[in-house]
């Protein structure tokens, strides 16, 4: 129970921090063009890192951050249908892991594991598959229930995919640079 609470708190704080940083940059570019923010979608990194390293326990906190993140308020949710895209986005990562598991690549943390969570190239593969799922599922949902004010085309699906990949890369690069002293310590190596 204590571990679940720690994982939830860490996941929520990390995801919320990425939402705040991403929103700051979106405000800076003043929505011109209005899709530019989705080309570097930082919050996807929180979904990837928290679910890969903490497992299913991170899902509720990430989902809560998805609901809170867009408007920084939970009170703006007027319909249950509006929470489904956020849920699908979070579930895109376990779905990617499950897909890889089905193809004989279960997640592990040793060099012998077919899918090693200590290898950044494997994290990149998980990111790519989850970005495909996320871009397809969310845009299908938005189209099916006419939840988008603008017309959804293949360009938006591609943009979601590129945005999730690029956003995760930016966060990983930032973490590598900012955590250099820790990474160079003997405890990690």
């Amino acid at each position: 129970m204590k571990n679940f609470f720690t994982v939830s708190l860490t996941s929520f704080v990390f995801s919320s921090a990425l939402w705040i940083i991403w929103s700051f940059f979106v405000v800076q570019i003043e929505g011109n063009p209005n899709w530019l923010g989705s080309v570097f979608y930082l919050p996807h990194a929180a979904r990837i890192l928290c679910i890969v390293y903490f497992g299913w326990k991170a899902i509720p906190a990430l989902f809560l951050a998805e609901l809170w993140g867009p408007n920084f308020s939970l009170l703006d949710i007027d319909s249950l249908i509006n929470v489904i895209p956020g849920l699908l986005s979070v579930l895109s990562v376990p779905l990617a892991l499950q897909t890889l598991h089905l193809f004989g690549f279960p997640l592990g943390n040793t060099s012998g594991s077919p899918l090693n969570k200590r290898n950044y190239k494997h994290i990149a593969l998980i990111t790519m598959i989850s970005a495909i799922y996320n871009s397809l599922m969310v845009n299908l949902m938005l189209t099916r229930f006419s939840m988008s004010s603008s017309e959804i085309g293949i360009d938006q699906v591609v943009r979601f995919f590129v945005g999730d990949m690029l956003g995760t890369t930016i966060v990983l690069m930032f973490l590598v640079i900012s955590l250099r002293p820790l990474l160079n310590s003997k405890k990690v190596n």
Partner: protein
Amino acid sequence: MTNFYENIKDALSMLNGLEKDLNIRHFTPNELKVFYTIIIQSASSESGSNITEIVDNSGMSRSTVYKTLKKLTNAGIIGLTQSPDDGRESLVTLNSIS
């Protein structure tokens, strides 16, 4: 809690591998600052970056910049070419990764 720290250790191990492959480990923070300045300037200038501008934009002393440029050149990360406009000026270009 041990499980939580094990998970964090796995994540740090992944970032450690990424840092190793980026080949930036043997640079000091000041040298990295100069390197990042070169990368940022290279985005706006294809012909190469002016050393004076690198000194100004990195905020580092001229000697630190020159030492770093020598280290980066020896590592094959950057190249120095003579400026076509001013024969006394060298331009810094990023070498492509192959």
